[in-house]
């Protein structure tokens, strides 16, 4: 059982994701996380401002429960199922990130430069989190889904729209890392 405390290899993780999608389909639901952001907007009263948020959010309660589970799962995995949660990325990537100012590369799970409490007094770091989060929320709803809804669920159903969305995800990611990162870091 020691393997469980190590980072899971791709050939365990990928099938687990397919299994999670299978379970959700078999209980009559679907695998898609970003629609929860819309549900949360509706709960906060966004329906008063835009037609898009006028729907019966209670029909999506099940997915909010999945989100609650995902939070609990993160707590369990980091506290009870990990010895040392540093991510062993490619040494070339580590060098590259260090040259961009990410000294924590290769020795942390997330860059401490962005996800330590110190970020709350670092305008640039905060801006990265805010802009990044905003684009994820805006883009996911614009594209009608995110990594789970399009790249896993949609592509598994051989949906052409999902393929177009996934091409978009990668174009956006490549533009950010290769063209924009050198300008901002």
């Amino acid at each position, binding site marked *: 059982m020691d393997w469980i405390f190590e980072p899971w290899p791709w050939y365990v993780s990928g099938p687990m994701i397919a299994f999670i999608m299978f379970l959700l389909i078999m209980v009559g639901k679907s695998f898609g996380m970003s629609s929860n952001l819309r549900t949360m907007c509706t709960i906060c009263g966004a329906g008063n401002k835009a037609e898009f948020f006028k729907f019966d959010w209670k029909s999506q309660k099940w997915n909010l429960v999945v989100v609650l589970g995902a939070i609990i799962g993160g707590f369990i995995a980091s506290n009870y199922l990990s010895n040392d949660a540093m991510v062993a990325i490619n040494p070339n990537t580590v060098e590259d990130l260090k040259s961009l100012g990410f000294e924590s590369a290769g020795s942390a799970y997330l860059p401490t430069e962005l996800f330590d409490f110190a970020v709350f007094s670092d305008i640039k770091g905060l801006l990265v989190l805010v802009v990044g989060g905003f684009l994820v*929320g805006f883009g996911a709803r614009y594209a009608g889904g995110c990594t789970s809804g399009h790249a896993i669920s949609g592509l598994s159903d051989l949906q052409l729209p999902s393929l177009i969305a996934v091409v978009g995800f990668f174009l956006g990611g490549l533009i950010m890392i290769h063209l924009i990162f050198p300008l901002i870091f």
Partner: protein
Amino acid sequence: MRTLVYLIIGIVFGITMFKSEAASWFRIYEMFKFESFHMYGIIGSALVLGIIVVQGIKRLRVKSFYGEDISFCPKNKSVARYLIGGIFFGLGWALAGACPGPMFTLIGAGFLPMLVVIVAALLGTYIYGLLRDKLPH
């Protein structure tokens, strides 16, 4: 009872996201640098199995665990919304290093600054809702 099932599926999902390192900002960066097979292996193997599962359920008309029919709703045909929306998403995915599932998992793992990302993602969703009729779809 069904609620408990959703909760357990969510917990398994959260554990998988954290342990697979798909929730790590570093893995996302490394993926877009093409310097590791890890993320491609995860998405690729999930997809190969996912296609087999979904096509199998469709062809064999498998019923849900509760004996109900399973329906898959096809997505509306369009290019603009998926490509433009997808690019916006990708820009954010690479910058924040988290997509809408792992964001929540990382809160559970104790990375509280991720709350900033979540609030911003809610704001992004809200702004999309306001602008929806003016955007090309």
